[in-house]
């Protein structure tokens, strides 16, 4: 959630078990201002918290004009922040195999197995055991959660005829009816499912608004929980694949945002859990 909107965003998601102590809010409002200034970023957001066994990681994200290009930062105390470097897709794949809790120690080493094609004449794939630090695992998980759960309402971003993506200044929010339909929400990521649509399906879409993947195309079908909250003035989407990922939107207002507070583990049992 955007730093400027911190108290409003927290107010919207509190019902879902996401709160920040006054102490942390005060620390964030000071330290993130300094971080934004030091890194010369136009926008600073509080991304959320990944809970470790002995300590928790607070994550912040900053970006300039392009919402796809984000810089991640982590802190153990909301006072001192460290840049979290992006990780190679191979490491992301390795990290996906880890199903135990984050320990809370960024230097902790995990043993992961990854497949690698050996460059030999026989062209065998060999299982290689490497170590992955918790810090890199953190970067990987942040990336995965963003890919899976970073949501924007339809209409908040527009694609100009020049193929430039910009935030729409006239977006005044989804109506009450629209806010309850999952097709009005989109993933803020490089499109994946959009590319797999047929020309017939694409013809029905508006190229200025529907240039991102719709949440309706997520598999399995019931992986998002949509609820009206706060007396039907806020729409809240919670991911069941990544429990703890929460998106909020003030109905009929331009306010929206997302946050993640959880263990950083993907829910692999989803299929069994929904009747």
């Amino acid at each position, binding site marked *: 959630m955007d730093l400027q909107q911190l108290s409003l965003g927290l107010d919207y998601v*509190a019902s879902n078990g996401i*709160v920040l102590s006054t*102490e*942390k809010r005060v620390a964030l409002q000071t330290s993130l201002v300094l971080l934004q200034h030091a890194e010369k970023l136009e926008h600073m957001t509080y991304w959320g918290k990944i809970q470790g*066994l002995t300590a928790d990681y607070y994550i912040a994200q900053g970006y300039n004009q392009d919402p796809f290009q984000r810089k991640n930062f982590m802190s153990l105390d909301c006072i001192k922040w460290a840049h979290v470097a992006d990780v190679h897709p191979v490491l992301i794949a390795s990290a996906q195999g880890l199903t135990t809790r984050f320990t809370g120690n960024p230097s902790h080493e995990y043993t992961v197995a990854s497949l690698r094609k050996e460059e030999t004449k026989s062209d065998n794939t060999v299982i290689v055991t490497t170590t992955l630090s918790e810090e890199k695992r953190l970067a990987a998980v942040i990336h995965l959660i963003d890919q899976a759960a970073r949501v924007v309402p339809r209409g908040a971003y527009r694609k100009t005829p020049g193929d430039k993506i910009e935030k729409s200044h006239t977006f005044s929010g989804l109506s009450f009816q629209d806010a309850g339909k999952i097709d009005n929400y989109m993933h803020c990521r490089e499109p994946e499912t959009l590319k797999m649509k047929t020309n017939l399906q694409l013809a029905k879409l508006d190229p200025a608004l529907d240039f991102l993947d719709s949440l309706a195309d997520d598999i399995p079908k019931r992986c998002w929980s949509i609820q009206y909250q706060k007396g*039907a003035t806020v729409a809240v989407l919670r991911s069941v694949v990544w429990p703890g990922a929460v998106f909020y939107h003030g109905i009929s207002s331009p306010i929206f945002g997302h946050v993640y507070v959880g263990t950083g583990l993907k829910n692999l049992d989803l299929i069994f*859990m929904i009747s």
Partner: protein
Amino acid sequence: ESNIREQPETADGVILAQAQEKMLKHETEVPEEDEATEELVPNVPQLAEYFEGADIGLGREESFRIFLALKKLTEDQPLKTVSFWGKVFGLEGNYLIAEAEFREGEEPQPVEEEGGDELNGEDNEEALDEEEQDPRDKLPKNKYRPPPIIPAEEYGSGVNKKVYFVCDEPGKPWVMLPHATPQQLVVARQIRKLFTGRLDAAVVSYPPFPGTEAELLRAQIARISAGTHVSPLGLYTFDEMEDDDDEEARDKYVLADDFEGKPLSELLVPDLSGWVHHGQYILPQGRCKWINPGIKGDEDEDQEDDEEEEEEEEIEAEEGAPLLTPLQNDEDVDGHPAWSVRLTNTAHTAYAAVCISSNRWPGAHAFAVNTTFANVYIGWGTKYSSEPFSPALPPMVQQEYGLEDIFESNDPTRQEEEDFEAMEAQDDERDMGSEDDDEE
């Protein structure tokens, strides 16, 4: 997007507001000191403040509304104790749960649920039917005896020590959940389900869950309470006046008179030696207090058949961790203690409290400082596992009937049949030949 501004739908919001309005009150007087009664509703907003220091909670306004809703519950029900147990998230709606005890003698008799508890009864009917059959049609008898039904614990003891009320928003009416049965607990341990938010939603699972979402919720509440209701060491103690019966596990605790609060340093140690469980461990049979399923009483009419079985199965009593067992003994999770410890108010620890969060049941928390403590659960109602979920396998295919009475043989081949017929024909000819010999 059209230019016509849509009238905001306030129907849902208005309906909720109307329900919530009934909870609002504004008093301007305080009772005189001698009139003051023991305070029934806990100071939920203040407890929420402590949890908030560890980033746990539901926000100040919802906490306050829960407080008002608990107050309303005490006005509608004759309760002896009440507290906010927690919030369980569901896909379409959520559940707010209150934990309570009725005043002596005031507990209502819950409506009997139709359903899976009657399995044995049906079998008994079948047995009756059997006896009405014609003794000449001796059909194979079904030797299957379902496992004995473990009776549920009575209200006030074990799993059902307390009763639970749920509602989906503060201000909506509270609904009392049924008591938990051992069958529900046994199945609940084997399945992994998310809640929808509708108490009457069907639970489709294997093994089949004997109940709807209401019963599953109650079972999960029981498991979570048993596993995560903890308190600082020394706050509760056993009642000295009760008989010290070594055979019976102690199952009652009382507030200790002399508890002055545990120092934060002792609550903060990672090995959790400063905390104990006051939620009682649930045995594998689904009860806190072991009952021998072999002892049937006079319900079973097939007692004779079981005499043999009694001698065969000497059922060993299940044992679990005793009440007030320290948290040190909890099994590790992923190589770390089962509970993570955090300090609130890290800027100035003189005013801090200690908060611990369960790693086995993510969402279960407890805090303590001086003589104040509380437990709460805020989560989806499922246990943590680093292993992917594997549903229970169906049991082995049953044996249809004993093989010892049956023997199989191969069908004769055509050649064998011809040989046989040939032999038969030869025997017939020989026999006819001998009869001819006798007549000369």
